[in-house]
């Protein structure tokens, strides 16, 4: 029997599973979303599921749900592994471009203490602007080449900017613009859509199984999941951006990652940040 004849039905299994889910009678009208109500429902789900976790502690990801890991993390935070990247980020942020200007000139308040306002919906451009996108836009506007969204420099810069906002609550706005509502809705749909051969959605791990183990890792809750970004992951041995994490989550479910800062990823970041409004920025973070 040829190998493809064996693998074909196995590889189709996830799709069959999806079909079985479809066959369960459900009726969801395609209502226009009510983001405020949905964000409240989102929060309530996690508050109810983990009644002994204080709301603001959800930003600590797996540490909020696992005591052993939390103790190790508290020790590590006395001498955090992200210090080097954070220092580099401060340096890079202050370094002037060839034309004499610097990043501070592109941002409100010179870029200090503003991370909690990103992403925002740019009504002029008609799209979601994330902090990473804004940094590269700043570079391009000042005649500098863009830097990789997956690389160390972008991670260091966003680490520094997050650090200046530590403790400030996420304050993501959805303006009264149908395109902004669409972006929110797209992000929400992306979050719940199964993808990759392993047929996981973001929700599969971060809504259904937070606190449980996936191989040797403890899964983080989706509530507050971006508050600690960017993160120094021991697994990476380096600081990684939101773009990097989205891409690796995709490939881990055996889905080919989309381009960094593609519309889907920006809309996803918009949605995830909005539903965590009110929770404090804790970045940069350290994770296993």
């Amino acid at each position, binding site marked *: 029997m040829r*190998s493809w004849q064996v693998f074909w039905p196995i590889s189709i299994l*996830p799709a069959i599973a*999806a079909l079985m889910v479809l066959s369960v009678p459900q009726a969801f009208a395609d209502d226009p979303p009510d983001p405020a109500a949905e964000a409240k429902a989102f929060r309530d789900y996690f508050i109810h599921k983990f009644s002994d976790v204080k709301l603001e502690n959800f930003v600590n990801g797996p540490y909020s749900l696992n005591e052993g890991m939390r103790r190790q993390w508290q020790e590590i935070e006395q001498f955090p592994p992200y210090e080097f990247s954070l220092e580099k980020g401060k340096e890079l942020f202050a370094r002037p471009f060839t034309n004499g200007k610097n990043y501070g000139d592109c941002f409100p308040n010179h870029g200090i203490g503003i991370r909690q306002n990103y992403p925002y919906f740019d009504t002029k451009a008609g799209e979601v602007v994330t902090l990473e996108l804004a940094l590269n836009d700043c570079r391009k506007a000042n005649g500098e080449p863009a830097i990789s969204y997956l690389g160390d420099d972008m991670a260091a810069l966003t680490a520094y900017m997050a650090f200046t906002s530590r403790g400030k609550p996420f304050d993501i706005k959805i303006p009264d613009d149908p395109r902004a509502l669409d972006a929110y809705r797209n992000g929400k749909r992306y979050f*719940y859509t199964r993808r990759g051969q392993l047929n996981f959605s973001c929700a599969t791990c971060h*809504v259904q199984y937070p606190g449980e183990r996936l191989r040797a890792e403890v899964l983080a809750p989706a509530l507050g999941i971006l508050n600690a970004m960017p993160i120094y992951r021991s697994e990476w041995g380096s600081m990684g951006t939101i773009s990097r994490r989205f891409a690796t989550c995709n490939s881990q479910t055996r889905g080919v990652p989309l381009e960094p800062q593609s519309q889907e990823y920006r809309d996803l970041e918009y949605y995830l940040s909005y539903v965590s409004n009110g929770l404090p920025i804790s970045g940069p973070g350290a994770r296993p």
Partner: protein
Amino acid sequence: MTVTASTASGQLFLWPLVALSLVGCAASANAAGSQSDFETAYAAADAAEQEAGHLRNRWTVTETALAGARKAAGEGDFDRARDMAREAEALAKASVFQAKSEKEAWKNLEIR
């Protein structure tokens, strides 16, 4: 194809030659058939993967199978290449199915 010879020994001599040439013909016919089978299979797999790409839902394993098929074809192993291409097509079609069914199915996971 029949071979006759005037003498018994002549027949004995010629038979292996006939057999060999028949095998030779069959082998090259097989090779040509194999290659075109592979090309058909790969074209189908590639088309399905393009559709998955448009749906923004390609799988890493599909890409690996396609690369494996190309590599085997490059080495002249068209049977294996065709098999890998068929697997790639199945994977690509599954990813397309996933993308299409998830258009509605995602709502089942939504927190309400």
